[in-house]
């Protein structure tokens, strides 16, 4: 029990952010029309590419060859997620905008 309480105290800021973000995530997209499901999924997909920051931190403090190789790979994978995700989303939404301007 004491361990659990200590765990909570030690990570209370992170836990606070996690709980609030959980509600925020649900609230923010709750009224999305079904037309936008795919672009929204794709956009959210790009946002979790934020994991690249972790890859940069690992790579930035890598000293041996194995960590360098794995870190390099991780940064590439993360970048693919971020760049690919945002560009694909933009392409999808470009279509929506085009028809708007025609009206």
């Amino acid at each position, binding site marked *: 029990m004491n361990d659990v309480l200590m765990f909570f105290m030690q990570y209370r800021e992170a836990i606070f952010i996690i709980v609030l973000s959980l509600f925020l995530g649900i609230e923010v997209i709750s009224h999305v029309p079904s037309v936008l499901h795919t672009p929204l999924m794709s956009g*959210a997909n790009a946002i*979790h590419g934020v994991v690249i920051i972790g890859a940069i931190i690992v790579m930035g403090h890598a000293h041996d060859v194995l960590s360098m190789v794995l870190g390099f790979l991780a940064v590439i994978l993360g970048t693919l997620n971020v760049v690919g995700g945002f560009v694909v989303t933009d392409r999808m939404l470009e279509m929506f905008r085009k028809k708007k301007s025609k009206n």
Partner: protein
Amino acid sequence: METITRLIQYTPEISILEMSYILASVLFIVGLKRLSHPDTARNGNLWAAAGMGLAILFTILFHKKDGESIGNIPWILGALVVGTAVGWVAARKVKMTAMPQMVSIFNGMGGACAALISLMEFPKLQESLAEAGASSMLHGETLAILFGLTIGGVSFAGSMIAFGKLDEKIGDIKASWLRYLNLFFLLLLVVLLVLIMFKHPVSGDNTLIYFLTLLALIYGVSFVMPIGGADMPVVISLLNSFTGIAAACGGFLYNNQAMLTGGILVGSSGTLLTILMCKAMNRSLLNVIIGAFGGDSTAQGEAGDKTVKEITLSDAAVLLSYSQKILIVPGYGLAVAQAQHLCHELDVLLVSKGVEVKYGIHPVAGRMPGHMNVLLAEADVPYEKLLEMEEANNEMQNTDVVIVIGANDVVNPASEDDPSSPIYGMPVIKAWEARNVIVMKRSMAKGYAAIENKLFYHPKNSMLFGDAKSTLQKLIAEIKNL
């Protein structure tokens, strides 16, 4: 006993970094919010991208771990350039129809990235715990690493299978024993996680973590494998929220607020989005995962003796030209054949003959919700011509002809009148309520749900067999010759 208070290492750089993370988080939130409204969606995507760019740049410039700045910067920049070039070209070159597969691949990359980070951090953590003389691995950081590895690994492997299924490289496996195997794998994963948490930290003892990685990958494959291809959008959306949680685990590990907010936001909104998608198909998430779809469809086989009417191109041309009101119901077949432009051409031609042409879009037409809207928009079809399913159904009785192009399950009457059908209860476009129906289809083959479609045998219906693109071309030529 550990001290609870955390030391605050203050330097101006760290302060700037933290401020940039707050700004990035705000940009993510505003971006997501704007992404969920049609007018602001594109702009919202750019906001989120700006947030990401900011977080990446400031991390490279100002991040410090134990007073040590980010090193290996040329390598990091090199990896960023390679990733950007490949990602950009892949995303630009991919056909609009293959969009869902692409999203799945990018999602997998994020999952793999999260798993790799955990894989590299575990030995370091174990070493430092061993040096500190800890009796077990029980620690908040271990938890974050293990969850990041497991969830990231499952997400990566699952996304690759989802990609293969959407690309029709991997077929569906329908075996009920797979369900039990999955439960067994899941149990094994939990046991392994507990084992690692309570093991004695010995520097360099990483066998269990490699085993966990392998098991996570295997589970990812076996989790997606039995789920039908038609349900892949839901699966991708679910794996998307998984990767979000994996990213948040990284945020927990590094006490990094941008990763934490970004990851959890995607985790929670992705879960909601998954549920919304299931609702659009009138099914529960559990039903999708366990998979009642496309099950044993032998019972529906008795339709074989019914007759199918075919219509010739010239008859179809006449029927269409002298109609008042036409509704086009596009499906994945139209997308595969890249026929959306021809579809628009037919539309324009008929309008010039005084016919009213509208489109009836089923929420899950194509391969993903909204996929069809994107494809038709690409072909310059005006927004107000696209009717949502309910509007289309309301106007059905006044519609002369419904043209179904490459769609199948979304116009299946079995969803209304056959309680034994796997798609019973799914809302569909009631094409059979119109005066005439023309179904353009390559063959009598079943749709993605692998069930018979009674609409094809309906007295009002006639079939126009052939590839959507060439049939449309011939039909347009025929109408022009009238």
